[in-house]
């Protein structure tokens, strides 16, 4: 089997508008581009397959010496570029080196039942190649939201109530604890009930702005809410501005202040 036949899509990347289809023979290429190329490989087996294909080598008969040299050269290049070398690559380099040494100095003692040291590597390469190809095929199968589209739940003239999930607040609490456990997002204890009101008010204001694009600053306040309400609203506006979600505009000093959506 000659793997070059299956050489369907090699590493091909676009850098600065130019398509780079090959590993550079020299280093006249910006280091960033090289990083991109290297990141194209899924691991040592992928890199090895690439090198074999590039040389048009029959995978069943890998000339281990040149491949090993190339591989090591390649890893040196990565090191030169100061990439963090995944240990997987180093393991593969040592495997290749071992195969090479065993082929150069055959171990006479157990030569009889010893198979070609390349056999195991070839098996792994072919196994990997098989799944690599299959994953390309899987990517081509018509899939939802790319090739075919699910018909969005069509509105039917029925009461929607019984389609609602039944969840009680307790379940929400449990879910919340799970989230807390996983990520200590609220570790700072900052979020008290007041902060939540601010969050709620932020959503409320955003929603209005979203519908009207611009609202008067004073229209955000309702006097019935009293001082606490005003403070919450004010904090919400400041928070929204801080997060860059709204713009606060005043055309001239002492004139009306407006809040507007950032995207116009």
């Amino acid at each position: 089997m000659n793997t070059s036949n299956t050489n369907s899509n090699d590493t091909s990347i676009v850098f600065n508008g130019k398509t780079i289809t090959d590993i550079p023979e020299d280093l006249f290429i910006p280091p960033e581009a090289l990083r991109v190329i290297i990141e194209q490989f899924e691991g040592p087996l992928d890199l090895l397959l690439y090198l074999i294909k590039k040389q048009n080598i029959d995978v069943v008969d890998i000339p281990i010496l040149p491949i090993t040299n190339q591989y090591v050269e390649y890893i040196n290049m990565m090191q030169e570029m100061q990439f963090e070398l995944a240990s997987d690559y180093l393991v593969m380099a040592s495997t290749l080196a071992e195969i090479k040494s065993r082929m150069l100095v055959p171990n006479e003692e157990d030569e009889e039942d010893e198979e070609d040291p390349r056999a195991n590597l070839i098996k792994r390469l072919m196994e990997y190649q098989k799944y690599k190809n299959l994953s390309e095929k899987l990517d081509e199968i018509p899939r939802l939201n790319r090739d075919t589209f699910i018909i969005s739940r069509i509105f039917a003239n029925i009461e929607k109530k019984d389609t609602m999930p039944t969840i009680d607040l307790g379940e929400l609490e449990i879910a919340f604890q799970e989230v807390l456990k996983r990520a200590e997002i609220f570790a700072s204890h900052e979020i008290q009930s007041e902060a939540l009101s601010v969050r709620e008010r932020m959503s409320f204001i955003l929603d209005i702005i979203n519908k009207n694009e611009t609202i008067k600053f004073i229209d955000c306040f309702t006097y019935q809410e009293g001082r606490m309400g005003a403070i919450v609203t004010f904090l919400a506006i400041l928070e929204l501005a801080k997060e860059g979600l709204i713009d606060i505009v005043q055309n001239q000093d002492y004139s009306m202040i407006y809040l507007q959506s950032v995207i116009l």
Partner: protein
Amino acid sequence: MSYSKPLNLIIEGALLASNDPLSLQDIANLFDKDKPSKNEIQKTIDVLNDNYKNHSFEIVHVASGFRMQVRKGYDDWISKLNKQSSTRYSKAFLETLVIIAYKQPVTRGDIEEIRGVSVNPQIIRNLIEFEWVKVVGHKETPGKPELLATTKKFLDYFNLKSLSDLPPPSELEVL
């Protein structure tokens, strides 16, 4: 005009696949070039509707545009559908809802960061469909991601007057 698919089928497919009603403008915007005129789209919709006479669905014109819906008279059978959907009760569903409730307004990215996994779009779609969550704006970052917040309906469902009635995190942490 010539597209690789007939105009009527493009409109039909779009109405079927859309989550929201589509206005004539929305439909025109699906086309990069050779945009059909609004008049043309309206006529096509009328013809489609005529052809749906022998079907269980129709295109209706609602406030925000056109949408496909199942005709009246099928409740007996259809109301038995969608009683249970695994995505709705899943841990992922609840956690997503909780994060939106406590951290709103949030983007999908925020939720992903907190949960450490990508958000299943179906979950957001369901939450919006229940009207528990809505899009309140867009964040000014690349891709302008949608900002999600909970709604009054969400509060009503859980019998809460306001978000501050949600269990405060500090209390929970003692548990």
